[in-house]
């Protein structure tokens, strides 16, 4: 049966092209792979090959013709001995690409991908009668990992110095002794490689915990975190994903300069497919780490070196977890809402204390998870105080605070009595000199000043 040869699309953006030259003439016999013509696309001149075998029955578009639309019939291919007149009209119709589909119901609201509680959940993390123990953030993280490793054989820890050295920051102290070298694995200093291996292991059914000595070094591995771990569930149509945790200290420590002091909260928070946690207290660290290890998605767990040694009450419970997407009101107040997370909470709480001395009552919200973000708790508080200040050590442009500001503006604009202020780290690489470093970070006084500004005091 005769078939029409159609003007091909030869690049992702090509809609039309020039039929520069015919390399066959009517009556020529062609077979698969023979070059039929040269076609100029928007990018280059391409050779156009035959797919089927046959005889060129008729050339429909002369060489040198410009602006030939994709899918226009340019020649007719016939079988040997067949005449061109036998080409059925339907040949063209059969080759037309599928038409636009009929109207479909509009897509669901983005809320489906961003599970946020419709109403702020203010239940306490543990019951009032539960005993607590003073625990450092460091011990809480270790305890959480150990409990989950006891619970599930497929959980393992890998990273630089996590095993024999007992952790560069001693987070994995004792884990090698309890779980052995099969499950607590020292890696060479190759973040890109071991993040990829861990992601592959997660595809293969394990639940890796990857420790980055600091998140600064995870920039070497960010391709696997985002392109491999975060996107595969979507790209596979739900067939496979990466249940795993990437954890380690994030942000400024002290006097380690520009390359070791970056806060990545805003970076990772932007990625659909990732969940992002930034705990403040030891209880946050423990309850959220256990949730992170059990979560079937890749979780970014941003710790802080300065907080590692701080002690907080942690409930004595067999299985203490904190759900993602649930902020905690650390201090109730009426005049201004301060929203923060991680190390930022130290500035927020100190500022609230100072403000109280001056008769300003600040409500302090500890976000704990940045994705999913508990915006309902923020909005409920802002509707009460009518003022908001966000606090983080990261840079100002594209900050977590700027996202929170946009949420408040869109959903509680009428409640605001002042523009939201974002207190952030300064817009500079981290300097080494002690005095400069102090000023590059936030200060409690800056937070106090911002709160006074929005309360017109």
């Amino acid at each position, binding site marked *: 049966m005769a078939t029409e040869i159609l003007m091909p699309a030869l690049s992702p953006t*090509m809609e039309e092209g020039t039929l520069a030259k015919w390399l066959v003439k009517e009556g020529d016999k062609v077979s698969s792979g023979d070059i039929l013509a040269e076609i100029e696309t928007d990018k280059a001149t391409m050779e156009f090959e035959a797919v089927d075998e046959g005889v060129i029955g008729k050339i429909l578009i002369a060489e040198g013709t410009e602006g030939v639309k994709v899918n226009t019939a340019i020649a007719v291919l016939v079988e040997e001995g067949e005449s061109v007149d036998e080409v059925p009209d339907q040949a063209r119709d059969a080759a037309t690409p*599928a038409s636009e589909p009929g109207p479909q119901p509009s897509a669901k609201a983005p809320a489906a991908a961003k599970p946020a509680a419709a109403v702020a959940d203010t239940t306490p993390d543990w019951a009032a009668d539960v005993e607590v123990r003073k625990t450092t953030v460091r011990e809480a993280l270790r305890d959480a990992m150990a409990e989950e490793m006891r619970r599930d054989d497929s959980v393992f820890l890998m990273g630089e110095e996590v095993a024999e050295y007992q952790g560069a920051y001693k987070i994995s102290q004792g884990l090698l002794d309890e779980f052995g070298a099969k499950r607590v694995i020292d890696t060479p200093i190759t973040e*890109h490689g071991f993040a990829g291996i861990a992601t592959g292991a997660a*595809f293969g059914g*394990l*639940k890796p915990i990857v420790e980055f000595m600091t998140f600064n070094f995870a920039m070497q591995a960010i391709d696997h975190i985002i392109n491999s771990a975060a996107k595969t569930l979507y790209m*596979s*149509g739900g067939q496979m994903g990466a249940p795993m945790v990437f954890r380690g200290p994030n942000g400024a420590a002290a006097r380690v300069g520009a390359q070791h002091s970056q806060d990545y909260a805003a970076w990772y928070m932007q990625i659909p497919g990732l969940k992002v946690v930034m705990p403040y207290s030891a209880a946050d660290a423990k309850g959220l780490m256990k949730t992170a290890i059990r979560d079937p998605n890749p979780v970014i767990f941003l710790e802080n070196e300065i907080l590692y040694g701080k002690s907080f009450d942690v409930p004595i419970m067999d299985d203490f977890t904190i759900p993602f997407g649930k902020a905690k009101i650390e201090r109730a107040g009426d005049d201004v809402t301060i929203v923060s997370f991680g190390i930022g909470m130290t500035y927020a709480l100190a500022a609230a204390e100072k403000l109280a001395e001056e008769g300003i009552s600040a409500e302090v919200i500890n976000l704990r998870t940045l994705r999913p973000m508990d915006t309902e708790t923020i909005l409920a508080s802002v509707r009460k105080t009518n003022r908001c200040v966000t606090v983080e050590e990261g840079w100002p442009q594209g900050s977590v605070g700027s996202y929170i500001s946009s949420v408040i503006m869109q959903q509680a604009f009428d409640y605001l009595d002042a523009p939201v202020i974002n207190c952030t780290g300064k817009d500079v690489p981290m300097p080494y000199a002690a005095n400069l470093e102090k000023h590059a970070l936030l200060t409690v006084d800056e937070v106090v000043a911002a709160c006074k500004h929005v309360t017109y005091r």
Partner: protein
Amino acid sequence: MPPKQAAAKSNVSAEELLGHYREMLLIRRFEEKAGQLYGMGLIGGFCHLYIGQEAVVVGLEAAAGEGDKRVTSYRDHGHMLACGMDPKGIMAELTGREGGFSKGKGGSMHMFSKEKHFYGGHGIVGAQVPLGAGLAFADKYKGNDRVTFAYFGDGAANQGQVYETYNMAQLWDLPVIFVIENNGYAMGTSVVRSTKSPSLWERGAAYGIKGEEVDGMNVLAVKEAGERAVAHCRSGKGPYILEVKTYRYRGHSMSDPAKYRTRDEVQKMRDERDPIEQVRDMLLTGKHATDDDLKAIDKEIKAVVNEAAEFSKESPEPHLDELWTDIYATEIPQEA
């Protein structure tokens, strides 16, 4: 060691040769059809065809066992067909339809099949190499004897993460076969223009990894080398490298005019070393099949491919609700 020659042809059964012929032909006809559908605007974006390289995956799949895993780059259609994924689901993914393996959300470069242990389909050059080692890590951790084939090209062979992975794979004795599909060109840059030491498998020696070069146009040579690699990995001796010398007849992607090589070079390869023609000759000269037998297979393959193409056109586009699904898992995906 020097390239291994194919096993004595007399030892190969007609049934095996016909199987290789059929599978390689399916890939070639499928890819030709994909090129055609791309030309018609039914397939969008990037589309990297496997034509010319068919013997690599067909030979290695013949050496693979039940439960073995595979992962590759964006030039992935051949791998999926060779491991038994349904041509209809592959073609429908290329056209971005609901019936595709990723429900139309992955496309040509990002496709997966848990059932067939095919772990993608990855669009970032070299990323599949540590991912493949990670799959092997999981099998070793679980204590089974499965192996993983991690395919990558001569271009990816210059990626730093490949060498990070070689080091850890050998350090931890991971059962992974690194398959370097050396088709001579990393997009438009030939191996000699990108690589100072052109013997890519020998780089494994720096890590103590055994390997060899293989004639990738000869399916029997590929299978035999694959069997050596599988035996090495399965016995717990760690990774193995196969540098398979192959050739792609088409451009890097559909929009590549391939001006970096001569038409004669391509034609010579097609005329003298074509992997399908080689098996066809063996079948005919060995009197394993007649011309009519092969014509019947051709016809049968053509029907399979046409059916896949029809399905890929008729399958509806994904429902708009699909935009918002599969971003987060509600439960932990379990091993098949």
